[in-house]
């Protein structure tokens, strides 16, 4: 049973406008200000310039990570992610990388777990192609967290068609639907 579902009615779509700082009230987490839970749950949007000439390397990484996850479908389960989105885009002659994650845990709270897992599966290696990324990131979690926080761009609006619903709740509902369908099939 989730306490989150009591936060709002999942049937009532909701939007939330967020102040420029990224939070309504300054609340310190271990590594800096914490960002609020919105109808679209927790998340981050990291935008950083890539090193010149690295675009192809970054794109190739997409395939590598596809294969990693195919072989380890539960690999990232503990992060309780909904989605990760990686985007490359140009501003003038420079190319930027946008890394957007939507998940159900407070970023500040579980940040070391995320770094550890991403490191284990090589997902963070992509960051080596970004300007200003700490070279010793594999062993220096605080430096990695600092980089992420410095490149985080908070949303000013977030919307959800089914607000505050966790990935676990969605999966539970789908499992129920599957077993219900199977039962109906067997009754035919």
């Amino acid at each position, binding site marked *: 049973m989730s306490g989150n579902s009591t936060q709002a009615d999942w049937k009532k779509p909701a939007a939330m406008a967020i102040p420029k700082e990224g939070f309504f009230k300054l609340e310190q987490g*271990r590594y800096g200000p914490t960002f609020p839970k919105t109808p679209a749950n927790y998340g981050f949007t990291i935008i950083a310039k890539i090193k010149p000439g690295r675009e192809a390397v970054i794109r190739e990484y997409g395939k590598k990570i596809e294969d990693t996850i195919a072989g380890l479908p539960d690999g990232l389960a*503990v992060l309780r992610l909904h989605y990760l989105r990686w985007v490359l885009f140009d501003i003038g002659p420079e190319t930027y990388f946008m890394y957007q994650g939507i998940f159900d845990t407070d970023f500040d709270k579980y940040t070391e777990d995320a770094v550890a897992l991403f490191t284990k599966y090589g997902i963070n290696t992509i960051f080596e192609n970004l300007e200003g990324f700490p070279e010793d990131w594999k062993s220096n979690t605080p430096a990695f967290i600092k980089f992420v926080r410095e490149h985080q761009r908070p949303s000013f609006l977030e919307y959800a068609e089914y607000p505050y619903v966790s990935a676990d709740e969605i999966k539970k509902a789908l499992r129920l639907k599957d077993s219900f369908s199977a039962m109906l099939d067997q009754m035919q």
Partner: protein
Amino acid sequence: MLELNDIQHILLTRTPALTGEYVFVSFRNPTAGRAWLNGLVDKVRSAAEVQASLASSKRWVTLAFTWNGLRALGLDEASLCSFPDEFKQGMAARAEMLGDTGSNHPEHWVGGLASPDLHAIAILFARDDEERARCVAEHANLVAQCNGVEVLSSLELQATPPYEYAHDHFGYRDRLSQPVMEGSGEQPTPGSGGLLKPGEFILGYPDEDGPQQNLPQPEMLSRNGSFMAYRRLQEHVGAFRDFLREHGQTPEEQELVAAKLMGRWRSGAPLVLAPNADDAALGADMQRNNDFNYKEMDPHGYAVPLGAHCRRMNPRDTAANMNRRRMIRRGATYGPPLPESAPDDGVERGIAAFVICASLIRQFEFAQNVWINDKAFHELGNERDPIIGTQDGTLEFKIPKRPIRKRISGIPAFTSVKGGAYFFLPGLEALRYLAGQRDVPTSS
């Protein structure tokens, strides 16, 4: 190899002390601080010495310093800067994140613990009251001789009877689950996890991720040291017993309520292995009393509620990255025991404990911020740790049960934070360096 001759004993040894005293001191100037340290440094025993002399020793001394204390001793700016930010800021400055709000806020702390004038602690553990009195008097003599050293406060420690096993004022058996590190010569009890890399607890050694990074400098200062978070937790024994009586009709039901809050019966028997009735023999058997998991044996919390104290402080196989979150616990109870039939007498009693770890932010602060005080832990929504979480009477505690779970609303505060601090626990050579007995090594 662990340098057992240089590591302060508290990191590796549990001494048979039944009493003791914590003395919190302030240095008006570096000369005064060094005089105090020089008067004590030879009394601090290494892990190797204490292990060899455990049966014959009567007292055990531990020294540690706040960041302000290192500055007050005259440590140079470059070294001071090399310490981690959370240690520099200190526990009181990080109160909001730790959950020390409301009546637990540092403005209510006692003994000068929230003050920047808190510079050092002398932990004087003693085998008996006579030895404690002797140590306290000897320390007072030293302070009297050191012009410019002030005692901010002290706390007398007393084990609570019966003395056969360690337990707190609520009656819960303690010291059941401890991490064990490689090279310590010990083996973890069944269920306590594998041997951990020493760098999880001691500076200068590889940790579970490889070589440690960003160690305080010079290397001689950090080597064989560690960080300690001190917590003085008052236990409201009267309120706790009232709660048990309110929610349990019979003594057996009251024991079950106590067990559900903790995740273990007060005997120490884990609910996962003894879900329906207490099993005192199991509780006392170190080969069996920690041998369980949650993911396979109790995934829904029918034995141990998801928000129970044990399940939060050590989620075992239901949390990621567990080997990087382990902590060594030391400490003692203080204050007189409250007789079972007596109403609360208003006297402060509780636990004065140390959490020892290589990284306060990754280990101690994570436990406080996420495991103890995160209302959304395990998606519980409106709960904090029922024993040591910050409670203001507005939160609840859910006990999963078939067919319908039990929900207890308005959990009162069974404990209050009366003080706390972050200390650096240097190795013996580092203590001598801080005392001015060693030159700065030219190589670093």
